[in-house]
């Protein structure tokens, strides 16, 4: 059984759909990137998974159970949702002791978890004096308290400086190496591309792609696109579209022809007698594929 399963999950806030018929599964012992632009429904999905938000329909389960049905939730799932879930007047150690007490986890785990995230020396300090990065670490310490087999991290790099991001990548890799299942959300594929095995990509609350990140990389390497600059972009777009090519207009007036090589594009515009200022193949990155899938490439009109 896959540890995390979302099945036909739908959530509407009033009449506004946040998640629409979303189905995916996260494999055991895999690191899965849960990706999508801001407002795609990632956080809502994770909150449904963690029992904080009720779905309108469908289900989200962990080890086949709803979160509230887990016998020992904190020992099964560790979650980091936001860096602001702390009482500012409480000491870091006390925050964790409260959670450990409620979850019936030995208090000795508190120091271990603080040490693991590099907050051992700040355990006695009040959280109100913590930087955003330290709060993220404290959130991770809370998630690790119960030594869970599954970790759910919602945009964990938010607010981290480059050192913090590197540290988090290292920690995520360590956690995965220990055989844990990790679901980490981000609005940037580049942030997690080096650490994840699989991706689930959503946009507008719906699934747009899922599978091994290697497949996306292959897609990036094998799909061509061409940038074309002409004084007659509208006419060129008409000609290329008539030639069954996928054309988009960049904000600066250049055309980007996806899935075509320069010779195909060149022939089409030459036959139409159009003037060309610039034509060159574009290198497609993993991020390009992600942005195209989610329809968020800046300046594109599709």
């Amino acid at each position, binding site marked *: 059984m896959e540890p995390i399963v979302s099945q036909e999950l739908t959530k509407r806030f009033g009449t506004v759909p946040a998640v629409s018929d979303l189905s995916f599964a996260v494999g055991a012992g895999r690191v899965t990137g849960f990706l999508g632009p801001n407002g795609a429904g990632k956080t809502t999905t994770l909150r449904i998974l963690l029992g904080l938000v009720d779905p309108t329909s469908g289900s989200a389960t962990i080890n086949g159970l709803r979160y509230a049905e887990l016998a020992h939730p904190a020992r099964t799932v560790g979650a980091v949702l936001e860096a602001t879930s702390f009482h500012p007047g409480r000491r870091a150690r006390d925050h964790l002791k*409260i959670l450990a007490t409620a979850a019936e986890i030995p208090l000795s785990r508190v120091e271990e978890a603080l040490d693991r995230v590099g907050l051992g020396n700040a355990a006695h300090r009040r959280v109100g004096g913590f930087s955003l990065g330290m709060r993220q670490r404290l959130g991770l310490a809370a998630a690790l308290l119960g030594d869970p087999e599954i970790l759910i991290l919602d945009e964990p790099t938010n607010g981290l400086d480059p050192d913090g991001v590197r540290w988090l990548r290292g920690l995520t890799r360590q956690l995965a190496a220990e055989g844990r299942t990790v679901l980490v959300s981000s609005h940037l594929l580049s942030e997690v591309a080096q650490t994840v095995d699989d991706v689930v990509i959503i946009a507008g609350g719906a699934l747009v792609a899922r599978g091994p990140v290697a497949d996306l990389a292959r897609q990036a390497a094998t799909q061509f696109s061409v940038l074309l600059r002409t004084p007659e972009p509208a006419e060129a777009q008409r000609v290329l579209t008539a030639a069954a090519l996928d054309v988009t207009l960049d904000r600066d007036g250049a055309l980007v022809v996806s899935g075509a090589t320069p010779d195909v594009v060149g022939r089409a515009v030459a036959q139409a007698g159009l003037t060309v200022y610039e034509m060159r193949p574009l290198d497609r990155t993993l991020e390009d594929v992600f942005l195209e899938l989610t329809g968020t490439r800046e300046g594109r009109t599709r």
Partner: protein
Amino acid sequence: MNALLRAEARKVLTTRSTLIIAGFVILYPALSVLPAVLAAQEPTVDRGTILQVLRGGADVLTVAALLLGILAVAGEHRHGTIVPSLLVSPRRGRFLAAKLGSQAALAVVLALAASAVGLITGTAYLATRDVSVDLLSSDVVVTVLAVTLVVTLYAVIGAAVGALAKNQTAAVAGTLIWVFAVENAIPLVVGDPGLKRWLPGGLSDRLLQVAEPVGGLGSAWLALVMFAGVAAVLGGAALVATKTTDVH
């Protein structure tokens, strides 16, 4: 459930605002005696003065219990700690029960501690006026129990209001406006001064005067049932809200 209650106790003991309020209400009865001690012309005192000291402490305790209850629940929403709390304790009914239970337990401790301070300072002061008080007399014991019961029910009401409102500032402001203005204004607006005794403040006042021959014991029992009913209704509404509301 025990684990959740212990966790709630830890929250109370690691929140400075709670400790400051608790310290103040425990010491308040002693502070309330002080003006009488320092007055150039001391007021007339008798053994009934000790009941006044206890009830004076209860007035402050009830407001404090309401505020502490609100802070305990709405404060979780304000600081976002509701998220980690519900992640370790996703069964929301049990979570709320632990909140209400821990606030009730805190209220019992505060009421008994404040009563002890009131009795010690009150009897010491009365002794200087050659008035002796039997601390085990029925009126003293019954008043202490009434204070404890009223403060405990107010703590439950406060926690329930916090769970219903979620917005800490709105809950505190709304509650203080209700206690100090609305409850006094309603009888005036309706034109029936007697209506006040059927409102929560009037019911709790009647309970605090259980040792007095006002309306007999029967009306005190009725006041208890009605006041407990207010706490139960609000607690029930809080349970429904806690179990059905999305947490963002």
